[in-house]
């Protein structure tokens, strides 16, 4: 999961869009959830 912390918000959003994962904006209180959803998708 560590590598996802290095992603910029835009990079994270690009992956969420690429994987069609429903998402809202990346803010402090949502970032961790979305990093996890991308991690789960990619693993």
């Amino acid at each position, binding site marked *: 999961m560590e590598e996802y912390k290095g992603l910029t918000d835009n990079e994270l959003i690009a992956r969420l869009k690429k994987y069609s994962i*429903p*998402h*809202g*904006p990346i803010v402090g*209180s949502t970032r961790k959830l979305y990093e996890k959803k991308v991690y789960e998708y990619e693993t």
Partner: protein
Amino acid sequence: TSQKHRDFVAEPMGEKPVGALAGIRDILGKKLADQGFDKAYVVLGQFLVLRKDEENFREWLKDTCGANAKQSRD
């Protein structure tokens, strides 16, 4: 819905504590409060920022305070 939820929606949310939310009892409420979600309106804010997506909201709740399926559904 539970009586607790009916009581909650019967009046403006105002500054109600997070424990006033249906499904959120002492332990869960404490874990949420420890992470800054000490008021019901902050949890509402998180639901809105998650674009009212129930699945994402439940997953966030489980990750944040360990709420189980029933608790997060409530």
